[in-house]
């Protein structure tokens, strides 16, 4: 066993040094910045486009005393449901030829007016590309009702803020779990293509023969996987540090705005590291097994798309557990080895108790071992062409 570990260590040390000391590792460290920058840029553009195109605009063509009451009513409503959720109103003084004004406004491009409200508060009329049941029409109806109803004195509503209610806490913890799951997914997604190409260097340099003659293939697989894990943990430390700093800078409450996980922050973070390791080792072992079959970088590129889709599917399966960790689907996702780490991390955010995590980690470790052994065996069989010749059952039958 010691010899196996030592052999794996020799490979891991070489791979780690070759990865971390290369110039390209800087790009790896900067990797998360690109999707963040792109996401930020496209997100803000998208948000602007959405706010321009999706919020309906209604022109109010009424006498000034009416428009003032309508505007006040709208502001009251906006205070309750938010500006962004409410129809935008633009106000115009009525002209002599009201029909022509209405026609002109509906054809106007700036702002793009969807409907025109005319008449008076007592007899309003809404015209435009709109039905009676349209949410815009309903909002206008609410605004008009508020505008015509005299303000009634109402008893003041006393609000006592509490730290969390059971409803809000469950929701917030689910959000914490979801954030953890998404982070885990993206981290392993980035690493998958790197793992796929792990053996290409040895195969193209022909050094694989020297290694295969000196140490067990399993030890090489383990060494390579742990070297990548160590490199990615190094990256993770940089990313988490940078990310927390950024969140602290841009968010009002920083990381403290997230709900405290059911298992507590220290436990959650410790489990996050462990589940990241397990998630990486499980998916990495599968991808290394697949990638070991490839002989060229082109073959690896061809493989990377289905592999990414596979990861997205697993992520989708794992996300069914968010908010409902005890449903049969969630339990199935927790048992399925490849989705188990993500599911269990979300569970740590939502449910207290350590034993399920101890059992899950042992279960995942067992699968890492199984997959690695299978991968090494497959590599020896298909790449090194080793082992006794096995006949398919159809051939055996034919031979009989």
């Amino acid at each position, binding site marked *: 066993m010691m010899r196996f570990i030592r052999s794996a260590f020799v490979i891991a040390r070489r791979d780690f040094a070759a990865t971390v000391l290369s110039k390209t590792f800087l790009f790896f460290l900067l990797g998360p910045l690109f999707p963040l920058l792109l996401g930020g840029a496209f997100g803000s553009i998208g948000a602007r486009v959405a706010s321009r195109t999706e919020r309906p605009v209604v022109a109010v063509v009424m006498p000034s005393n009416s428009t003032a009451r309508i505007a006040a009513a709208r502001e009251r409503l906006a205070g309750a449901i938010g500006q962004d959720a409410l129809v935008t109103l633009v106000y115009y003084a009525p002209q002599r030829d009201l029909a022509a004004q209405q026609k002109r406004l509906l054809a106007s491009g700036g702002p793009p007016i969807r409907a025109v409200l005319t008449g008076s508060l007592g007899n309003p009329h809404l015209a435009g590309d709109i039905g009676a049941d349209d949410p815009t029409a309903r909002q206008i109806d609410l605004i008009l009702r508020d505008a015509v109803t005299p303000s009634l004195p109402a008893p003041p509503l006393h609000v006592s803020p509490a730290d969390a209610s059971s409803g809000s806490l469950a929701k917030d913890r689910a959000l914490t779990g979801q954030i953890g799951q998404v982070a885990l997914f993206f981290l392993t997604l980035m690493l998958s293509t790197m793992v796929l190409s792990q053996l290409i260097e040895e195969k193209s340099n*022909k050094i694989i023969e020297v290694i295969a003659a000196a140490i067990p293939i399993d030890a090489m697989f383990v060494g390579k996987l742990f070297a990548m894990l160590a490199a990615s943990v190094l990256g993770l430390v940089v990313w988490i540090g940078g990310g927390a700093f950024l969140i602290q800078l841009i968010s009002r409450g920083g990381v403290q705005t997230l709900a405290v996980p059911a298992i507590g922050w220290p436990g959650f973070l410790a489990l996050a590291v462990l589940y990241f390791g397990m998630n990486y080792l499980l998916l990495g072992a599968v991808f290394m097994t697949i990638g070991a079959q490839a002989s060229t970088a082109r073959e690896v590129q061809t493989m990377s798309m289905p592999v990414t889709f596979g990861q997205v599917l697993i992520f989708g399966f794992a996300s069914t557990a968010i908010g409902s960790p005890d449903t049969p689907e969630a339990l199935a996702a927790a048992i399925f080895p490849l989705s188990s780490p993500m599911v269990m991390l979300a569970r740590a955010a939502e449910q207290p108790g350590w034993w399920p995590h101890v059992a899950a980690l042992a279960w995942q470790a067992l699968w890492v071992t199984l997959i690695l052994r299978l991968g090494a065996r497959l590599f020896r069989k298909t790449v090194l062409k080793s082992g006794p010749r096995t006949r398919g059952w159809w051939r055996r039958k034919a031979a009989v």
Partner: protein
Amino acid sequence: MLRQAQHQGIAVEATDLVKEFGETRAVDGVSLAVPAGSIYGLLGPNGAGKTTILRILLGIIDPSSGTRRVLGHERPLEAAREVGYLPEERGLYPAMTAREAIAFVGALRGLPLREGRQRADVLLKQHNLSDWARKPIRNLSKGMAQTVQLLGTMVHKPRLIVLDEPFAGLDAINQGRLEDLIRSEAREGATIIFSTHVIAHAERLCERIAIIAKGKVAFEGRVDEARGRLRPIVRLRTRADDGPWRSAIPQSARREGDEWVFELPEGGPEPLLKALIDGGAGIETLAIERPGLHDAFVAIAGNSAAAEMTTAEPVE
């Protein structure tokens, strides 16, 4: 019998090794025994199965059937720390320095990295490569890189050194140096197995050889035993074209220019000489040549296999 031989100083033995790749039988019932401390050659044309045999012996691949024992271990990887291997297709990490590459190969075989680096420095100095010790492999010439890999094969002072076509790609000077290195390792007690398709190297270096043809061992034994399978060749030039002396030479004798060439008859040179003199041959010259390994190879493996062999490695 081979198992018994293990206790009498056999470093490597194989019994009825078979390896099939799909429908192709690359190794077909190979049995051999390599005495400890000897230089042993696997001789055969390209595609004969030499590399596959070596890969099986080293545990890189498992045989379809048959057994092997390396330095007393039935699982070759258990003996890996005492084995050095230079594969036919040379390979090193291009970004690694020469010194690190040697130490890395040693580390794979259990040599501590620090000690590996120290030994690498000594070995590189001995081979006039000190100036290149801290240069990446990609900056080295092909011959230098090959030497570095060879030094990596030997850095952990293995008891068994396996070299697959070690002379391929080396110039004449480096071929000579490699032969010296092999002899020196053998003198220090290492067992050397190397494969080659160049008969001259095997003839100069090996005590024992296995001639491999079409995945089978056509011959296994000492080099002089292989030669001994052929009768000595007689080259005879006479003054008389014909006469009673003609009955003294075999009917299979052939003419090469003005010489008769034939195998020495069973009785040996004296009766032949007497019959020629008595028969009035008028001997001008009579030479008895010991057959070379090439002749033995032709006799054992056949002309077609011999045609694929070379008597000397083409130098770069």
